[in-house]
């Protein structure tokens, strides 16, 4: 996706936001620090796993309410059109969120107003533990826009994704919204508490890994075109692993936020209003 767009284009997504943040130029240290709730985190430890942002690179989060990011993304697209910026917004959501009512409300308005909004349905076929066919009468999410065109894209093929995003951006700038359904998969559970194996078979998971894994696919292509040797790729992998390990170690060293941070950023302008801790006789402060 990043290969097809610029940082002036906006991205907004749901709670699975770590990789998007990295793609927009965020660092591993910021990611791990935020996950551990440290000062060095991209939201200074105040947002958490679901609330990463990088506004200077057009990344607007990081949203924990399923589906809410889609109208918000259409609002970013409204801002782009209003400001005549000639840029677009990609609003990402899962197949679970694809059934949310507000998505259709926002799509309707985006189509009425020709907003440069690209709705990207990352279809991994399970909304938490519910298979798509149990939640959607029509799981052809690219067709669910009715009056808005949609494309079904192999989300496990990086070149297909790049081409689709490039096409979608051109289309959205000229004609308004478009839907991209990215067919993909989630190997792991939905969250820390989900083993991910109660609602699907292990064979299904390993089958996708063997046949459709996007990284394996690229690796094979690289070898087929003699772009790198096996050793070179192994070295890159080793290097990245080292980078990740170092970032984790460094994040652990980042201090926890100061207790005074509890009361910062509630408002831009607090007008000297009072705010209170749990025991308001003990902890009360004046907001800047």
């Amino acid at each position: 996706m990043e290969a097809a767009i610029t940082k002036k284009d906006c991205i907004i997504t749901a709670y699975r936001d770590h990789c998007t943040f990295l793609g927009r130029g965020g660092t591993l240290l910021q990611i791990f620090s935020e996950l551990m709730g440290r000062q060095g985190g991209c939201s200074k430890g105040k947002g958490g796993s679901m609330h990463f942002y990088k506004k200077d690179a057009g990344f607007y989060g990081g949203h924990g309410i399923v589906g809410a990011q889609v109208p918000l993304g259409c609002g970013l697209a409204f801002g782009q059109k209003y400001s005549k910026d000639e840029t677009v917004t990609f609003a990402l959501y899962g197949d679970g969120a694809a059934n949310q009512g507000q998505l259709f409300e926002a799509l309707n308005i985006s189509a009425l107003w020709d907003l440069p909004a690209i709705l990207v349905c990352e279809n991994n076929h399970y909304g938490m533990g519910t298979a798509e066919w149990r939640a959607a009468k029509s799981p052809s999410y690219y067709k669910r826009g009715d009056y808005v065109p949609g494309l079904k894209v192999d989300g496990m093929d990086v070149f297909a994704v790049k081409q689709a995003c490039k096409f979608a951006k051109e289309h959205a700038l000229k004609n308004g919204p478009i839907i991209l359904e990215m067919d993909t998969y989630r190997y792991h559970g939905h969250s820390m508490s989900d083993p991910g194996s109660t609602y699907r078979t292990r064979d299904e998971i390993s089958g996708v890994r063997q046949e459709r894994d996007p990284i394996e696919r690229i690796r094979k292509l690289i070898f087929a075109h003699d772009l790198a040797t096996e050793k070179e790729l192994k070295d890159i992998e080793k290097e990245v692993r080292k980078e990740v390990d170092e970032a984790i170690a460094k994040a652990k060293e980042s201090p926890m936020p100061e207790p005074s941070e509890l009361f910062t950023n509630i408002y831009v302008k607090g007008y000297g209003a009072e705010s209170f801790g749990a025991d308001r006789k003990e902890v009360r402060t004046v907001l800047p």
Partner: protein
Amino acid sequence: KEMTVRDALNSALDEEMSADPKVFLMGEEVGEYQGAYKISKGLLDKYGPDRVLDTPITEAGFTGIGVGAAYYGLKPVVEFMTFNFSMQAIDHIINSAAKSNYMSAGQINVPIVFRGPNGAAAGVGAQHSQCYAAWYAAVPGLKVLTPYSSEDARGLLKAAIRDPDPVVFLENELLYGESFPVSAEVLDSSFCLPIGKAKIEKEGKDVTITAFSKMVGYALQAAEILAKEGISAEVINLRSIRPLDRNTINASVRKTNRLVTVEEGFPQHGVGAEICTSVVEDSFGYLDAPVERIAGADVPMPYAANLERLAVPQVEDIVRAAKRACYRSASLAASA
């Protein structure tokens, strides 16, 4: 000179749109229809369809779009035809607007105004007659303003639009057509009121009455009746429910030693409850009588006119409570 609340809101919108091209208005019927209550009259003609946007009747969708536009740096004014309909969009007001600046550690502020009529109108039944002041004022990250007069409406709406944070701006349908005297200062396009500051509408020494929106008028009427009976009431127009001007309220109670809170909303967990807590915490030793609370009846709004009257505070309720606070409850001047 006099001005209606409707004209005060309209002129405030007009001036702020004229001053800042990032300000735009969106909502149901705000454009071609000129506003369900004509607050946006003439704005479509003046600023065009790019800045005055009629939306479909889909609050969750257009409110989310408004909040997203504010993320991007625009200054949307989102009109709800009434605040009852904001319930369809309350997730975006609270989770998307109020919390973003905090969650992003100051990266993404949300300069947006949600405005429209709030509270009981007349004869429209339960789903169209509810005060949401306490609901929204419970949420850190939001500011909640409640104008009473034309001066309030102009000064507070301009302050709300200029503010970098999300503001819930609660108007009252029954006040739109009311006229109030306005000074030259209020009519000046640079006029603005401070957020978080209450206004003492009438000074007094025997009992403090707090009120907001339409109830300020009732409290002032009650104060006149009380004056005839020798009770000097101080009437505080809260103007801002969040931030709440605890200093002004407590200073007044320390002077009068008695307090009556008035609101149209449901009593439980209401604005009066919060004010009472603040006074008990900070000025308990100054109280000479239990705090009195006048609020809407603890029922969904009935339709029949006689029942509806029983469900919203009346002037005589405020008079009665003030007398009780002054230990003068024996005779009741007002009749039901």
